[in-house]
């Protein structure tokens, strides 16, 4: 209440702008008094004015590690910060809204997509076809390798051309270079199975070397961020962390709804993002030993199931999610509201992947892959 009285319309807040940007983009460290009613746009104008940038560039602002998305006075109220203290405001380049770049037509629903390495975009569709697109969006190759739908595809970081697809039958099919990541394996006793480590170097059609049991229902998604860590999510409402060396379960997070997508941060394998029937993107910091919900921060905006998500390769703060509500959303984890929403699909979005560092590709039930350019180059 006292704060509310202090923060009036004409209140000035003293800010010190800091940045990690190059020196030509740094403003003097002198405190600047700004109106409390300013939003991100106003602050960005101030920085542009101070730097005398021509043309103007959008900036985003961080206070205590959180992005400013509301007027400063409300931000201060919400975070219980005194308006009389000098505010440390860090500014970064803002992510400009993604631009629709290209549409790649398919014959059937696109169920899986992967283009993390940036060299080629690999898509799998319900008609069993695998397609490879070059960076310019031209179809390099099409091959119908499965009789049934392709459920997942993955590119292998170690071998630049290595690719894999798995089918619903639970058996991986190899293509060009042997990589196997079976995604939906449902042995009779409802076990969780993830691809064995040895398969990376193994031969063709090798059976699973390790079986990790623990999930009571089907495993919907796995992520293998580092050599010795596997993260899995299942319809049994749990996210589990496994030690790949010993095939043992190390951590479990139980939620109350089925989980469809999980991905560990490329920077830090202990931060796991997951989404599912709950319709919220959640963040689980596995370093929190309690395993409670406190470790799972929720980001709510989607109106339907989140079926896929992908961390930005160039930023530890950005995630793109795909949902049945026909949209993709780009999140900055430093704020609870999504940065941008990518519309365009006319049916459920089924998969999403980064293609290189500045492009998001999504496959949908409307039989297209849409590519959006996202300028992430200036993000740390």
């Amino acid at each position: 209440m006292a704060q509310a009285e202090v923060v009036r319309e004409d209140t000035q807040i003293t800010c010190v702008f800091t940045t990690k940007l190059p020196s030509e983009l740094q403003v003097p460290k002198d405190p600047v008094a700004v109106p409390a009613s300013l939003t991100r746009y106003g602050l960005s104008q101030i920085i542009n004015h101070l730097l005398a940038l021509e043309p103007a560039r959008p900036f985003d602002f961080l206070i205590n590690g959180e992005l400013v998305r509301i007027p400063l006075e409300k931000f201060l109220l919400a975070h219980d910060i005194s308006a009389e203290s000098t505010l440390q405001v860090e500014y970064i380049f803002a992510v400009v809204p993604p631009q629709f770049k290209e549409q790649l037509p398919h014959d059937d629903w696109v169920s899986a997509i992967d283009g993390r390495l940036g060299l080629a975009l690999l898509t799998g569709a319900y008609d069993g076809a695998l397609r490879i697109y070059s960076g310019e969006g031209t179809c390099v190759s099409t091959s119908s390798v499965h009789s049934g739908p392709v459920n997942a595809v993955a590119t292998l970081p170690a071998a630049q051309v290595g690719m894999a697809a798995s089918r619903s039958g639970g058996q991986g099919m190899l293509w060009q270079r042997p990589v196997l990541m079976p995604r939906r394996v449902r042995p009779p006793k409802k076990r969780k199975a993830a691809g064995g480590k040895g398969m990376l170097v193994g031969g063709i059609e090798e059976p699973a070397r390790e079986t990790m049991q623990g999930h009571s229902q089907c495993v919907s998604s796995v992520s293998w961020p580092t050599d010795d860590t596997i993260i899995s999510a299942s319809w049994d409402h749990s996210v589990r962390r496994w030690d790949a060396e010993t095939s043992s379960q190390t951590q479990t997070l139980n939620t109350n709804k089925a989980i469809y997508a999980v991905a560990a941060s490329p920077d830090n394998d202990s931060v796991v993002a997951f989404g599912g029937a709950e319709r919220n993107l959640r963040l689980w910091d596995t370093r929190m030993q309690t395993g409670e919900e406190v470790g799972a921060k929720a980001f709510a905006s989607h109106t339907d199931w989140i079926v896929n998500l992908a961390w930005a390769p160039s930023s530890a703060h950005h995630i793109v999610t795909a949902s049945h509500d026909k949209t993709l959303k780009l999140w900055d984890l430093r704020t609870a509201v999504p940065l941008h929403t990518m519309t365009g699909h006319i049916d459920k979005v089924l998969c999403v992947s980064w293609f290189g560092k500045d492009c998001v590709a999504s496959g949908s039930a409307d039989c297209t892959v849409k590519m959006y350019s996202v300028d992430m180059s200036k993000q740390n």
Partner: protein
Amino acid sequence: MGSKRNARAETKLVEQAEASSDSELDAEELYLSSDDDADAAVGPAPEDGSTSDDADDESEEGSEQDSEEEGGSLDDELDRAVVDYIADRGGTDDPAETSGRPPGEPGEAEVAETRPVDPGSDSSEDERPNRNTIGNVPLQWYKDEEHIGYDKEGSKLIKRERRDRLDALLARNDSGKEWRTVYDEYNDEEIVLSKEEMQLIQRIRAGQFPHIEVNPYEPEVDWFTRETEIHPLSSAPEPKRRFIPSKWEEKKVVKLVRALRKGWIKREKKDESEEPPAYLLWQDDGMVAEKTATGLSYIPAPKPKLPTHEESYNPPKEYLPTEEERAAYELQEEEDRPQFLPQAFDSLRKVPMYSNFIQERFERCLDLYLCPRTRRKRFDIDPESLVPKLPKPRDLQPFPSALMLRFRGHKGKVLSISVDPTGQWLASGSSDGSLKLWEVRTARCMHTWALGGPVHCTAWCPNNALRILAAVVDKKVVLLPSGTGTEEVEAAAVQALKLTPAASEGDSKLAHWQARDDGQGVDIVHQHLVKSVTWHGRGDYFASVAPTGNTQAVLVHQLSKQATQNPFRKNRGRVVRVAFHPAKPFFFVATQNHVRIYNLAKQALAKKLIAGGGITSLAVHPTGDHVIVGSEDKRLAWYDLDLSAKPYKALRYHTYALRSVAYHRSYPLFASSSDDGSVHVFHGMVYQDLLTNPLIVPVKILRGHERVDHEGVLDCAFHPTQPWIFTAGADGDVCLFCN
């Protein structure tokens, strides 16, 4: 006795004298004839004239003075006795003339001076005592004497000097009173009559009632009328019996006295030595006597609260409402206004009458008049407490609540759906003759079989190692490999569906097993139209229902042996649904009005549930102890098999006939779908404790389908592991509702 007789004689005497005053002899004789007390009655006649003269002179002087001073006051103070006297005498108009003697002044004066008397009084005490004490003796006796009699002291009353005619004439002319002055011969006085007395006399002469205020002819009021009056009150005079002692009371007293004397009634002797113990005066206040002698119980009046400062006639200022408050009170509804507003007065005597007194008294009378004469025991029960305490739906999470996916593709009504044991696949049969296989996660149709007829029922084989789908088309039960498992599983399914020669060649009368035309799956051709199929929990046996099949209505098939058998020899009604008990060898058969439970091991009827109203669907709880039945009479009945053959709970929430009911396999949920296009989801918790009845709470109404041809949701099925429900609508869609 003597005195009485004497008095009577005297009266007689007077009467005689009045009647004939002139006959002296008769009166004397009469007087003499009266007996022994004659001497006492007739006093001696003392002869003393000197003293009486003096007295006369004095009185004359005094009377003159008085008459001058007082004037007309005499008129008012005239004695009634005189009037009576005159009236008795015959009521002469002018007494002076009648008597023939001039009236004397002194008499008048004496009257005025000595006897101030209340003229209105009738009492003889107030009458002016006679100056003369001779009593009732004829005045003729003193006719020739100088005195007229004797005064109280016994001295003679000397006759006054008579006025001559001239003096009388002069007096008459001088004063207006003369004409109404009468002469009292007995006392030798002159009396001036008042106006009232004159009136009285005139009334008597006119033959009217003497007293002016008495009306002898008052209108009659009959107090005791035979007509029924509307008001019970009357101003009738109190009857005489109120003033006389009661005869019956007396009799009663006599009786009691007699009984006491004879010792029939014994009185306890009080021990007067002890003092009466102190007791609490208000102890029984607020307590109600259970019964009194009259049979009516005494209800004490409620005690008002003690007054506070506010109710003082001159309360402190802070208690007084301000003008604004008063204005605010005025604006309020009369019921909301405060009952009492403090007012200040300087002194207690300025406090006005309580303004609502009459109103409240009236209402109190009305209350008493209208109050029931019998005392009712009031139950002070909060109605809320009678409502069973049901938990709120939000506390009963999870349950399906939001439409998440819509499976589009069927061109006709979706008649039946079934979810595979893993929850990844959904099979739906439609009236357009197709059976579709859907991927649950994406609502993608993975496969479509054209079966050539409406698919009335479809069911997944619970055996996960086979992944076989059963569907009902016309007279056939079709077993299909779903193609959703791994290659080993698919191989096992194909192996299981590969017909043995015995089965394919055996010409059973019940059903014929034959391979499908496309080589995938098996047809089991029945004799009659099949409507539903149900698997046993192990996935080996399955039962088909052909309602028109009479004794062959229910057939049980065995997949492993590829054999068919008919468990019933007798037709007990049109069979609608059948179900296997999940654990025990029991078999549920729902006909239109009953659900029969057969023990397959003993081959006997175990229980018969009474439903009625046209059963359309049946579901067995995963524990097997409870059954829900949906019927055409919009009723969903929950049967607890341990309790009775009648429903434990009958839930009427739908507005049209029920189409299907379903239990969730792991969550405490059940649901019913109806032709009104809605699906009702209930929380149905079954406790391990046998003493606790199942808790049934409606939690959600799901609406996602449109009604087509008066048909709404034709089937519903729960997801085996998630709290989700699939619904099949007549509009051709299958909806998935999630929590």
